[in-house]
């Protein structure tokens, strides 16, 4: 198993806001439309938000692959409004991820590629000592 470990946690805050707020991003989408977003990388952490409107309530799988095709995470769900955040435990080590959402009811597949480009920036400060 690769050193990259994905931890999954329920986006409780997100679900609460969805329940209370007037805007429902899932309901805004067409049927069975999935969406993957990078929702922040503060403090070196990287979160990916996966939305899936599973109107029919079919079983579907969410799979996350690394750049060589190794499965980092796979789960099967049947919730109608899927909204989960995935956290990358070791964000420094990945260059590319692939999210695959497969509906087991109609066999539709949606794929998302995530590319991570990191570059080192050096700020040089030179002061004359008086």
């Amino acid at each position, binding site marked *: 198993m690769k050193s990259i470990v994905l931890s999954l946690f329920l986006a409780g805050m997100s679900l609460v806001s969805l329940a209370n707020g007037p805007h429902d991003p899932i309901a805004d989408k067409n049927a069975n439309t999935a969406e993957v977003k990078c929702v922040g990388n503060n403090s070196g952490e990287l979160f990916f938000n996966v939305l899936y409107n599973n109107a029919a309530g079919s079983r579907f799988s969410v799979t996350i692959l690394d750049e060589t095709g190794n499965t980092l995470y796979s789960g099967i769900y049947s919730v109608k409004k899927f909204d989960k955040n995935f956290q990358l435990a070791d964000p420094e080590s990945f260059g590319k991820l692939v999210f695959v959402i497969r509906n087991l009811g109609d066999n539709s597949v949606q794929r998302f590629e*995530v590319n991570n480009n990191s570059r*080192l920036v*050096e700020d040089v400060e030179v002061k004359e000592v008086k």
Partner: protein
Amino acid sequence: MAFFSKLSLAAAFLLVLSSAKAQSTETGEAEKTATVKYLGTQDDMLVFDVFYTNPTNGKFQVVIKDQDGTPVYQNVFSEKTIYKQFRLPKSEKDRVVFVIRDYKDADIVKTFDINVNSRIIREVAVRKVD
């Protein structure tokens, strides 16, 4: 008569000019004859300009030392004026010292503290693949 009047005016003008020149030369010498300027980085190197006027035409030495006092460059010159550009590699050493020694007066010492701050910029892009 008019001729002598013009001649005396021209002479007075020249006198003013030469005294102004003498004054500026004296001021320049009083300010010091050596300048070391940090110009910035280029190709990962720290670029410094060294300018030195050597009014006595005697020999003088330019030494560049790192934080530990280890000379990284030294050379002896005898030109009346030198202008040299030095490119020093960035390293963990965070101090550079320029010494100009004319073997007569006290050494001219210019010290620079260097602070390199490194940071990683991450750009994450998500795209849907059909």
